[in-house]
Structures are given as C-alpha cells and as structure tokens.
C-alpha cells in the first residue's frame, strides 16, 4: 500500500542558547535522522524513554514545528517546508491528541464552543449543521449531550481525553498523532479510552501515530512499532515480531524491563547501565554504545543504519551486532 505518511531523514535541532550574547553554539539534536512510514488506517506505535524525541517528532509531523531538515511526505506531497498559509488544508487532515487535554483545551470555552471552533475555522456548514455535528461528535466519544454547555475543568481526566478526541476527529482527518493519550489515566479509564480509539479507527479508517512509553499499551493498539533512542529509530516492524523476536539490544532490554502482571512469571531483566545520555552531545557511532551490553569497538566509531533482518517477520534494525538476546 502506498503510505499515507512517509518521513525521510527528518531532523529537528533546537538551538541551545548560552553565554552573554545568547548565541546558539550548540544544538539539542532532539530528532536526528528519523525514517518512518504510516499506511492509511494503520497504527504505528512509537516507543522510547523520556527525552528521546517522540513528542518533537510528532510535532514536526503535525507541523507545529518547522523541522531543521528532511522530508515529511503526506499523500506524496512534501509538507516539511510548507508555509503556514498553505498548511490550512493539511491541518484538517492531520490532527493531534495530547497527554494532558486540559493544556490543549481552552478553559474559558464550553465544550460546545471547543468542538465547534475547528468547524468554524474550516468554514464547515452553517450554525445549525455545526451544532448537529457537535452533538454527533459527543455521542461518538461517549459523552452525554448536555456536555455542550459545560467547561473542561468540570470533567474528569478520562472525560477530558474524550473531549480532546472529539475535537481531533471533528474535521474527519486521516491521521492523528496521539502523544501519550492514556499515560495520565488510571487503568480502568485507560482501557475505556483505548477501546474508543480502536473503535473510531475502524469506523473512520483513521491512521494513528501512537506515542507512549508503555510498551504493553503500544503493543495493544499498534500494527507496527518503532523504537526510538536519542533522536533515532533503532528498530521497527510488526508489533508481534518486535515483541517476540527483537534483534536490537535496546529493544530487548526495554521489553525485559516491563513488569509483567503475573507473579508466576518473574522476568529476567536485562538491566542497562546508567542513564540516557544528553541529545546535546550524543555518543559517537551507535548512540546506545554507552549502555549497550553488546558494544564493541566498531560501535563507538560507526553509526549503524536500519537494515532489514531476514527471517524475523519484517524487522528493520540499526545495530552492528543485531541478533536475538
């Protein structure tokens, strides 16, 4: 299938200002050469530790940020350098859901106003048609119709996330970047929202880029998964293959570190040394070499590239010594 979204060698370097004249002498290489693709109706899960660049990548794709370099092809059109005025139709088609909906919802507007706003901006329907659409949206995300007159703060975390989702689907997009949409929710609420996202995907043929640090959640909702470390994708492929047969030492340790909710199954954790290094001064060669149990001399010198791994069910892995744990 031709991808809906294709990202090639994408970089987002933030200037780090320091010194008297606030000259940017260093750069935070938050996203540093990312390749990925998402097919229509598909979920690509994006997993990685705090600060590895997941949100930055998501914000580049929704063009909240102007990336430093690289290509973002959406329906075969490179949108990475598009100017704001040309982005309007695109903003309809690519939406975003955030971890804390309250931050992204205007607290002084009622839920009805919040949901109607995108329809007004994109000049969709008259007043009456818009109100009908708002009612339909509330119903779709499982909120009572009377919510229209209420304010975001009157809702619980899970309900607010439903409002965020309703707003994201209001314009019938084809891609939604979901940035940790369930990370702040309790398990019983988390499962409600995950079910809703799956239902809506099937109903509306939505594609998701689903960002999270909980691999079990990502595994549940994704068709394919990409593992990110310090600004780069280190391994990706179908969820099942990645979880059953990971070839990258980082993926292996990440999976082994997930506490399994079964006391009979004491996992053999592969403990990593130390912390994630700073993206301002990433390690030479393979960025994972400072923590990798398999690192050798070549890893310090040469950056590994994503390579297809035969007989793994479709994994691509960036590692000089890729193989089972």
């Amino acid at each position, binding site marked *: 299938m031709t991808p809906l979204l294709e990202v090639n060698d994408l970089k987002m370097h933030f200037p780090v200002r320091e010194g008297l004249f606030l000259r940017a002498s260093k750069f935070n290489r938050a996203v540093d050469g990312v390749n990925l693709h998402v097919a229509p109706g598909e979920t690509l899960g994006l997993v990685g530790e*705090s600060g590895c660049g997941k949100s930055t990548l998501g914000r580049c794709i929704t063009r909240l940020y102007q990336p430093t370099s690289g290509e973002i092809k959406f329906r075969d059109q490179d949108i990475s350098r598009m100017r704001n005025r040309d982005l309007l139709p695109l903003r309809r088609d690519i939406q975003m859901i955030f971890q804390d909906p309250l931050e992204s919802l205007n607290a002084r507007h009622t839920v009805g106003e919040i949901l109607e706003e995108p329809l007004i901006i994109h000049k969709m329907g008259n007043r009456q048609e818009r109100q009908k659409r708002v009612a339909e949206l509330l119903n779709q995300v499982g909120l009572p119709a009377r919510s229209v007159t209420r304010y975001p703060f009157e809702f619980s975390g899970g309900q607010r996330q439903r409002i965020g989702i309703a707003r994201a689907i209001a314009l019938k997009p084809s891609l939604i970047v979901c940035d940790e949409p369930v990370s702040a929710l309790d*398990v019983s609420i988390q499962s409600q929202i995950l079910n809703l996202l*799956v239902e809506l995907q099937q109903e509306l043929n939505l594609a998701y880029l689903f960002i999270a640090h909980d691999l*079990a959640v990502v595994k549940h909702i994704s068709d394919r998964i990409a593992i990110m470390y310090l600004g780069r994708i280190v391994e990706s492929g179908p969820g099942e293959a990645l979880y059953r047969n990971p070839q990258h030492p980082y993926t292996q340790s990440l999976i082994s*570190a*997930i506490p399994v*909710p079964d006391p009979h199954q004491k996992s053999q954790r592969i403990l990593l040394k130390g912390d994630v290094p700073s993206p301002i001064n990433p390690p030479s060669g393979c960025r994972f070499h400072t923590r990798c149990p398999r690192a050798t001399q070549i890893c310090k010198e040469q950056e590994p590239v994503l390579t297809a791994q035969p007989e793994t069910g479709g994994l691509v892995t960036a590692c000089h010594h890729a193989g089972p744990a």
Partner: protein
Amino acid sequence: MQDAILEVDDLVVEFDTDEGRVRALDGVGFSVKAGETVGVVGESGCGKSVTAQSIMRLLPQPMGQIVGGAIRFHGQDLASLSLEEMRRIRGARIGMVFQEPMTALNPVHTIGRQLTEVILLHKKVSKQEALQKAVAILDRVGIPSPDIRMGEYPHQLSGGMRQRVVIAMALVCEPDLLIADEPTTALDVTIQAQILELIQELQQDMGMAVMLITHDLGVIAETCQNVVVMYAGRVAERGTVYDIFDKPSHPYTQGLLASIPRLDTTPKSRLTIIPGMVPGLRDLPPGCRFENRCPFSDEACCVQTPVEEAVSGQHTVACLHWKALSPAQPGGVI
C-alpha cells in the same frame, strides 16, 4: 510466621475542607511483617498516599486528622507519640521515598550535606564517620563517583539519580521499614527496573520490610509477597500475591486485572472495562463503594456495607457476593 512490625487497624482519616469534612480512609487495616514487601495498589484517589502519610504522621495539618483506629509499629501506637518521638522514628526506623524526588531533597544544599545531616541526626557518630557512611551508601545505591556527587546539588542529577539519592537518604540509618510511595512512577522503565532491583537487593541485605505503593499491577506482581487492594478509602481485598492474581475474589480486583493491556493479548481486541469512574469523597455510594461500577451489584449492595471476610488463610475480601463470584470457590462464576 513472624510477627508484624507494622499493624494498621481500622484506620479512619478525615480532612477538613472548604466544603466540609470528608472521610478519606474508612476502616483501613493490614499488616507488614519483617523482611517482606507488601504492595498497596488502587486507582488515583483511593487513599494510598493518605495511608502512608498517616503512618508517618505527615498528614497535612491541621486539615488531616486520624479520627479512629490504630497504627502500631513494633507494637507501639504511633498515633500516641509526641511529634518529637515521631521525628526520631522517622528516618531512623521508618524510611520513606516519594514519587517526586525533588520534594524530599533540598535544592540549595549539596547531596553530601543532606545525607550527613540525616546521619548525624539519628546516629552518634563523628562528622568524619558520617561522611564516610554517606559516600558508602551513595556507592551502594549505584551512584558513580560518589565522592564527587557529594559536592553536587540535586538539579545536577538526572531523575533516576535523584531517586537513588532519596533511597540512599531513606536507607542510610538502616530502618526496619521502608515506605515507598510510587517510587518509580516518574521514571522510565529501564530506570524503574534498576531502582526496583536496588530496593530488593537492599531489602535482602538489611532484612527490611517494605510497603510499596503503586498503581502498576506489574510492579506488584514482580516485587511483592502480599498485596492490599484499595478502593475509595477502603480495603477491597488482600492476600498473597498469588491469592490476588490467581484467585481475585473482589469484582474490583477482577476488573483491574482484566482491563490491563498485556503484551501477549491480541492487538486491538476489546479490553474489558470497568464502567464509570471512582466516586469523589463527597458522593460515595452508601453501601458498597464499588456499587455504581460493579457488574454484580444488587439492592443489598446499595444499602449494606461489606465487611472483610476470610477467603482462605490470609486472603480476605470485602464483597457481599464474593462467594458466588470467586474463582477460589467451587461454582464461582469468574
């Protein structure tokens, strides 16, 4: 079987708020034995932290009050101690670690100063000995170049490192009991794995008991021998980790276990849900507090408060209909 070093018995805690008095804990009871790890699990707002704060006598004052029950540490009622006596127990015999390490650290003092202060407060040692002890414990919790770190400030450390320092501070006086309130929730899984491993190792070295508060059932399964499941200020169920995961007998425990996505389930399959949400303290249902979300509730549940009943051994459950529902029971439906 060893004696409990901590016994919480029928604990009732209330808060004075602008809109009147609310009851955050309503008859919470459980015990912790020497050397064991007890997990306290439940969703946001169910009273896990208030339980910990009550034990440590750190409830926000003057709003938070223990209005009933007892908290016995080595048989001594902590609620009857003076603040001065309590201060001596805190840090020395009961250590604590919270979710956000910065709340436990003073941003304007060096790591070394904060550690040695704790040691000097509780131990009769010279300044020199305190310094040595401090470096040794930093080394023990896995902080590289501990002598250099002694001179650094909290903001110079990563989140994982800070949590290690807090653990070092909690453990430097070798307490009998460590209370850890979501110690790894703010950390990445790979760092979480390091910290949990560290707590377990230190526990084995020192024979310390641990009360581990978390909402992560995975963390519970991997680290605890006994589990307390809380819901809306009460204990819903408790027992060994095998009782809880193999034979969950409370509909809430059953719902929790069924609703978590697992690595080996079919992608995009429908997850079991618990409908609705945890009621606020101001609108608690009168009978069973789980009544408005429970698939098995009936009229009796709306009026009658379930009391804890023994399922088997240490396993207890507070549900009117647990016998008909429990997998531990012949003919149980789940």
